[in-house]
């Protein structure tokens, strides 16, 4: 397979009524190249740009004190999506991620008072209902996807899972067992999983809730009562929002949804992200995976947070650096050097913590050279900025993703769900797209200079065979903190 590359970014777009068309109407577009003369291959044909389509703000419906629905109709699709979000998470319940809280998030969708586990699973399959539950640091909920013709059955199951999960003891114990296996066996034996875990734990100190390390001793037993009580507390602890998308009119949905949330929630503000101090010093952590011929390499740097004025420019920088097949990193490390199957960069503009992460796998012998090339490409962004062409590519990719928002009910739900969790309205997202279109190379270069300079703190994580890597790391002049895979994967380091 050629590569992993997919557009990294939001998939958003505008749903069209069946009789409308977006962008160019191909039947009306005169094409001087189509004719009897045969194709003109002297250069690429012109591309007619698509306008950025209007997305509507969701209809907001009050369903009770502290409860509202964001409804976005999507015609001509098969499924209805309901994303039920309680704006309270682990941090609000327990101060820190705890085993009972994590178990609660995982096991809500196993069984309910009306449907034992087997019956719930069977019923879901019979009506093509997809349900999953989760609990994060600051929010949690249940997501439903169901064909429109089975709306009643699907929403019934949503209500059951949200309101009346029973948390069977056997499944709670299985959750603990699976976590122990993951933390002690399967996770540490995966180079990429270990590198990812170390990258995350190194970014957040152990005394910060976002960096909370797993407590293996707490994974030995679990109190079902504690999980049940947590759930009851959570369900009425804060505001609730339902993001609802699909082909069913609101009038057909509201009676079902009102029953789902009746008596739940509480007025208030959504849980807030915690302050995070970005690292100020560079560091290098390495995980010794004896015998590995490959090395997994990640580099993380601080980056603008969600509301930072530099955010949009940084998104464009990220795309140029490692966001597509011909991005600088991939063009260099794969197409030019043949070092890797794929190099990429991702950017997370969190509310209180932002970071850029570069990730690549290479043969161990190419570690130092790869580090050099990554730094070279980052330095080029600082000294040379991006080209107008690179900016245009980034803007076009964003426009295409935007225009694809309403491809399905699920893609629509994902887009508006992200707005919800980011605490922003559609107008802000639109404004970001306008900003992206207006930014020029000089402005973007300034942002590169502010965030990617040589003295910006860097967190390198390397997972590979120490015997093959030590010399190269020494030649780089790096002081390296070595970890074994277990310690790395479990965050047992500072």
């Amino acid at each position, binding site marked *: *397979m*050629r590569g992993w590359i997919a*557009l990294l970014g939001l998939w958003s*777009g*505008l749903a069209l009524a069946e009789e409308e*068309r*977006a*962008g160019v*109407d*191909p*039947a009306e*577009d005169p*094409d001087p*190249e*189509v004719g009897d003369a045969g*194709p003109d*291959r*002297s250069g*690429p044909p012109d591309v*007619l*740009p*698509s306008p950025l389509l209007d997305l509507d703000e969701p209809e907001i419906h009050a369903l009770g004190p502290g409860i509202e629905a964001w409804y976005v109709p999507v015609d001509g*699709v*098969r499924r209805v999506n309901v994303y039920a979000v309680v704006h309270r998470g682990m941090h609000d319940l327990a101060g820190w991620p705890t085993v009972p809280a994590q178990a609660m998030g995982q096991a809500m969708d196993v069984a309910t008072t009306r449907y034992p*586990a*087997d019956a719930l*699973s*069977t019923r879901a399959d019979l009506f*093509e209902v997809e349900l999953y539950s989760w609990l994060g640091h600051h929010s949690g909920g249940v997501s439903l996807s169901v*064909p*429109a*013709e*089975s709306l009643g059955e699907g929403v019934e199951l949503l209500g059951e899972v949200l309101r009346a999960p029973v948390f069977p003891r056997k499944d709670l114990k*299985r959750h603990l067992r*699976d976590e122990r296996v993951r933390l002690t*066996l*399967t996770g540490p034996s995966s*180079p990429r999983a270990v590198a990812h875990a170390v990258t995350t734990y190194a970014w957040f100190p152990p005394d910060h809730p976002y960096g909370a390390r797993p407590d293996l001793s707490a994974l030995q037993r679990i109190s079902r009562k504690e999980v049940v009580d947590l759930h009851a507390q959570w369900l009425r602890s804060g505001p609730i929002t339902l993001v609802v998308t699909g082909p*069913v009119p609101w009038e*057909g949905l509201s009676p079902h949804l009102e029953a789902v949330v009746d008596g739940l929630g509480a007025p208030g503000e959504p849980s807030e992200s915690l302050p995070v101090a970005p690292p100020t010093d560079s560091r290098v952590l390495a995980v010794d995976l004896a015998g*590995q*011929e490959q090395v997994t390499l990640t580099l993380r740097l601080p980056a603008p947070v969600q509301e930072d004025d530099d955010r949009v420019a940084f998104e464009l920088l990220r795309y140029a650096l490692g966001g597509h*097949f*011909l991005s600088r990193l991939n*063009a260099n490390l*794969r*197409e030019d*050097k*043949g070092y890797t*199957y794929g190099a990429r960069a991702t950017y997370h503009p969190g509310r209180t913590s932002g970071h850029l992460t570069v990730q690549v*796998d290479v043969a161990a012998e190419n570690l130092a050279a790869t580090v050099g090339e990554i730094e070279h490409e980052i330095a080029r962004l600082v000294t040379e900025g991006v080209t107008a*062409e690179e900016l*245009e590519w980034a803007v*076009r*990719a964003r*426009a*295409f993703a935007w*225009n694809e928002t*309403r491809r*399905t009910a699920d893609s629509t739900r994902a887009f508006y769900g992200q707005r919800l969790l980011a605490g922003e309205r559609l107008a802000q997202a639109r404004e970001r797209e306008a900003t992206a279109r207006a930014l020029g190379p000089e402005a973007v270069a300034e942002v590169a200079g502010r965030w990617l300079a040589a003295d910006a703190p860097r967190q390198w994580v390397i997972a590979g065979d120490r015997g093959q890597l030590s010399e190269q790391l020494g030649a780089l002049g790096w002081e390296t903190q070595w970890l074994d895979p277990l310690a790395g994967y479990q965050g047992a380091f500072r």
Partner: protein
Amino acid sequence: MLLLALLLPALAADGPPVPADPLALQPQVRVLDNGLTVLVEPRTRTDSVALHLAYQVGARDERPGELGCAHLFEHLMFEGSANVRTNAFDGWLTAAGGSNNAWTSEDLTAYHMTFPSGALDLALFLESDRMGFLDAGLEDDNVANQRLVVLQERAEGYAQPGGRSWDALSRLTFPPDHPYHHPVIGTVEDVAGFQTEAVRDFWHRHYRSQNAVLALVGNVDPADALERAAHWFADVPDAGPPEPRVTEAAPVEVPAQRDGLIEDDVEERTLYAVWHTVPLGHEDAPALDLLAQILSGGRGTRLDDRLYFRSNLATGSSAFHYGAELAGQMLLVASSPKTPLTRLARVMDAEVARLMRRPPTEAELDRARRALGGWVRDRLEDNASRAELMVDCYRLHGTPDCLGEEMARYDAVTPEDVQRVANQYLGAERRMTLSVVPRGRGGAMPGAVEVELP
């Protein structure tokens, strides 16, 4: 895997009417002068267009000494052609806001793109140029570079836990002279040794207009899109039919050494139990697909319950029926850090034996049908998936609109059919196993011999 689920009646008075035939794939079809078949279906939900172009060439068409060439060649299709310089393929498409990728299997190589409708001419220009004029763009530097990339792709994949399992299964279960014996990624020796001329020869033999089917789904006017396709492919020469390929799906014998092992950097042992079954399109394929779902379709299904939900025997289990054009296989898989593989195997054997003794219930079969059918119907919402499905329908059945009939075959499967195929194909004497075990710690099935991956 082409499936059908029963359509459910509308249950909510407020819901939309059920579509007349949601399984219909009815593009306009045109066979161009050079033999390329083009399928076009308009869908105007968004402005995008999906293009899917399949060449009927895969790893099974490789000759000794060129193992991995089909996949390497897939890489080289992006490196430039007569009128598209190196990197321009991706560059121009990315500049238009589009994206693209490809994949290679034993049976075919598929290229796909998604792009705004205003880039239709560009997409057709790019595809036609590399179909007709790739050899002018083949350069030694690009071939050399992509050799490195492919070898690195292999190395990265093999470095992941379990990353060698699929290739090891092919080598274990198919005899050396079977087209499916060698991995799609090829061998290190062959890939490292590819020269430009050999690649060019491969292109001439297989990459011909008569050997390809192209589909466009999205914001297009069919008549206009067909005219544009005809225009852009007009100068792509008809190089005649491709090199003949094996099309006869002969029964595959169980190898004398039917238990294999690989040692890996893992902390769990994994057992793959494998049986040769039937190829894609065989009359028994639907029953086998449904059998796999009955065994491992989540909670409340037989194998998953026995191994995971109702015991601690395994940390995970799965069953799937994989049908390729020349052969198919049923695979049952389970992993555990503690449970001996022999115990996992006994549970698998016991569940297969249950199906042999007694058919599944109607409820089990109905649930399996709905699960598989729903998956297909969800895929049909996506332009790229629709394009792929209609190309596969056309290649295998001569019509792009095959889903209705295909899914009717699943609808027709009875519990007794499932019992019959269990008895016919999944006997103990036909079972092969691959044990994936931690290095130096043993625990493989008795008699298992290491599988080499050159």
